[in-house]
């Protein structure tokens, strides 16, 4: 098991260097001179320009710049954004907000998605099943910004149950509405996934054997159907968690959430190289970690999967 985790971390190294190098190169190749851009329309003094170029190592070849930057990351130095704020501070301000939002969204996905999917699967072909399918189709085909605006208008503005936008400290109750909006699409998928998985498991021989043992229906559903049906759902949930962690640009934009998505979007627009690269680096690390956790969770749910052998 430990050997397996070690192997996976080793595998993550080329992924880490590959993606950061690629992103770094893309930012490097962006048109325009970042130092000229810093000074805007005023123009820049040649001596100051040279000094700044040396300070940001812009006079070095591309690959040297990259390794200087990577070396800094390993010492906890993510560079400085053009506003003068250390990038590490920007990261520290935005990631907790996004993580909170993502956790809340995943919680809704599990609660509503698995719950509705389970009931629909057990009542295949009945009214509940059919209406949940229609609902999920509706959610899947509606763009997220439409759902976001409708929710914002109905629940925040008309009914006044929540604030329409999120303040700087992004508290739990404030994030409730964006989290629900964020979860809707995944909920629809998970309802369908859980439903088909439950129907498939219900037809398995071991379920009939479980009834044959004299178990009650509720126990068969809880112990034998639900756990086996959750295996594909867990894959989807964890991939979705990864997606949510790297930020939901549209939803964060509409609800003014000071999270990763919105900040990264602005950084790209402004051409802030160090900020973009740092954010992507952290995202890669999160993805790799979430993927590893998913695979380990698999082994917990399904004992046939054993790693390290």
């Amino acid at each position, binding site marked *: 098991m430990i050997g397996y985790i070690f192997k996976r971390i080793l595998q993550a190294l080329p992924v880490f260097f590959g993606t950061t190098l690629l992103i770094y190169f893309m930012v490097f190749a962006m048109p325009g001179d970042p130092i000229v851009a810093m000074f805007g329309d005023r123009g820049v003094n040649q001596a100051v320009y040279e000094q700044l170029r040396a300070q940001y190592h812009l006079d070095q070849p591309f690959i040297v710049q990259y390794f200087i930057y990577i070396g800094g990351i390993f010492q906890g130095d993510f560079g400085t954004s053009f506003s003068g704020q250390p990038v590490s501070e920007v990261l520290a301000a935005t990631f907790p907000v996004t993580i909170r939002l993502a956790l809340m969204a995943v919680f809704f996905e599990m609660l509503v998605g698995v719950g509705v999917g389970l009931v629909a699967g057990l009542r295949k072909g009945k009214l509940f099943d059919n209406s949940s399918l229609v609902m999920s189709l509706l959610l899947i085909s509606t763009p997220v910004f439409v759902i976001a605006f409708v929710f914002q208008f109905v629940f925040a503005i008309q009914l006044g149950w929540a604030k329409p936008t999120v303040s700087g400290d992004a508290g739990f109750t404030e994030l409730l509405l964006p989290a629900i909006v964020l979860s809707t699409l995944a909920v629809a998928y998970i309802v369908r996934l859980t439903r088909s998985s439950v129907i498939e498991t219900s037809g398995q021989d071991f379920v*009939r054997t479980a009834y044959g*043992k004299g178990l009650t229906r509720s126990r068969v559903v809880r112990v034998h159907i639900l756990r086996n049906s959750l295996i594909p759902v867990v894959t989807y949930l964890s991939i979705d968690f990864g997606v949510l962690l790297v930020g939901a640009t549209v939803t964060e934009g509409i609800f003014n959430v000071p999270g990763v998505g919105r900040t990264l979007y602005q950084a790209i627009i402004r051409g802030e190289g160090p900020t973009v690269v740092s954010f992507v680096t952290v995202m890669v690390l999160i993805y790799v970690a979430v993927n590893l956790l998913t695979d380990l969770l698999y082994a917990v749910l399904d004992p046939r999967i054993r790693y390290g052998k």
Partner: protein
Amino acid sequence: MTAANENTSNENSAIETPLLSIRDLAVEFPNSKGAVRAVDNVSLDLWQGETLAIVGESGSGKSTTAHAIINLLPGAGRIAGGSIEFDGRQLVGASSHALEAIRGREIGFVPQDPMSNLNPVWSIGFQVEEAISANNPGMKKNEVRKEAIEVLKKAGLADAESRMKQYPHQFSGGMRQRVLIGIGLSANPRLLIADEPTSALDVTVQRTILDHLAKLTKATKTSVILITHDLGLAAERAEKIVVMYRGKVVEAGPSLEVLKNPKHPYTQKLVAARNAAPRKTHAGGEVAVSVKNLEKVYSIKGSAFKSTPFTAVQGVSFEIKRGTTLALVGESGSGKSTVAKMLLGLEKPTSGEIVIDGKNIAGMKHRELFSLRRQMQPVFQDPYGSLDPLQNIANTIAEPLVTHRVGTRKEREARVRELLEAVSLPWAISTRYPSELSGGQRQRVAIARALALNPDFIVLDEAVSALDVLVQAQVLELLARLQDELKLTYLFITHDLAVVQAIADQVAVMNKGQIVEFGSTKDIFAKPQQEYTRNLLDAIPGAKLL
């Protein structure tokens, strides 16, 4: 006086009432066109302590009848009429709560396929304990555990205590079946329904398990309903036999009576198929296939860097003369299929020689092997898995011709016509798809495909094992006819010794990768030399009955 009389008559009636009494049972599966009646007008009685076998081919309704008793019909199946009385209680229309109390506690259930009937994500111990605590509410946790170990030990799992924490995939098929029997008997039910409990197992394992089941149920006077497709097995294990055909009971009576004096034509055919005359031995021509000192070593991956060698086949040598059949017999894991794969060039031998038509194919290059494949063709066990579901029958049969670029489109069509005729299938079938065919028809298609290139040598890997007895007899007959007409050489791989007598001239018995006995079919069956072969022959169900 009258009171005393009433007492005795009550006692008498208590003894004379059957434990289970089924009357006019009908089971339906609704579909878009109405309903299919899978079981119709079935009546039977079972007394305390008695074993009753329900015999029939697949689709005869035998399993459905058994599932109807405890209301575990698959899908939308429902009881359409009749009554099922168990110990004086009506089970048809009983509440789900009442049935939950009867299942497990009073009627135990042992399912058919040991591979799919244990939940793969829970440990063996958990699944046994669950059955025990469901039927003994209020039992303490450590008592349940103790009882579970006891149940598994009784079912023949000697090291039960240490294996409780293991998962189903860590158990062999035979071991899993023992677990399922243990679960079925865990609450000391009065009736045990065993649905083909050993069909997926080797004959020797089958015998051990059935012996064990008989011992356990005899000790507790448990009644047993044994569902099986094997008339011999039924006659050997049960006092009474009920023969089902197309959802109806066609014959019922004491086992030996049914076996010796079958009345219904279907039963007569079943009995005849069992007593098929051994084939007339073919002398054969020159040697067509010769195998010398064949060896295959696999490396089994252990930990990340180590692998241990595993010898699957060792020192195997035999010759097959043109126009004759060699049967390769053995239990699962004996290496017989590995030999077949090497002969077909699908696996490379580690060492040794395979000479087909004077050419050594061991170590042959891909190109040469390709042209040699025209002369040797396989037919595999599973007629469901070995035909492409998306190709119609004509394309399936013509595929080898296309691959080897034989003939024009017109000529190929003519050849397909010829081949269908050879395997006694109508031309109309050529535009159909495998899913629309029965198992026997599919196996005929697989044989036609194997014959397409006019091969001399056919490897039949358990080619009739998945078929019902009567269909099996027909396919064997077809194979024998084709052999005579086309001078074919067969290598027939099987675990079923009953089939061997009908098709083989010579028999090679394999055990642990080696041939332990080799001889003519007659000699092997009449006077087996090895203990292993004797065990295999003794384990044929019903062998001693006739």
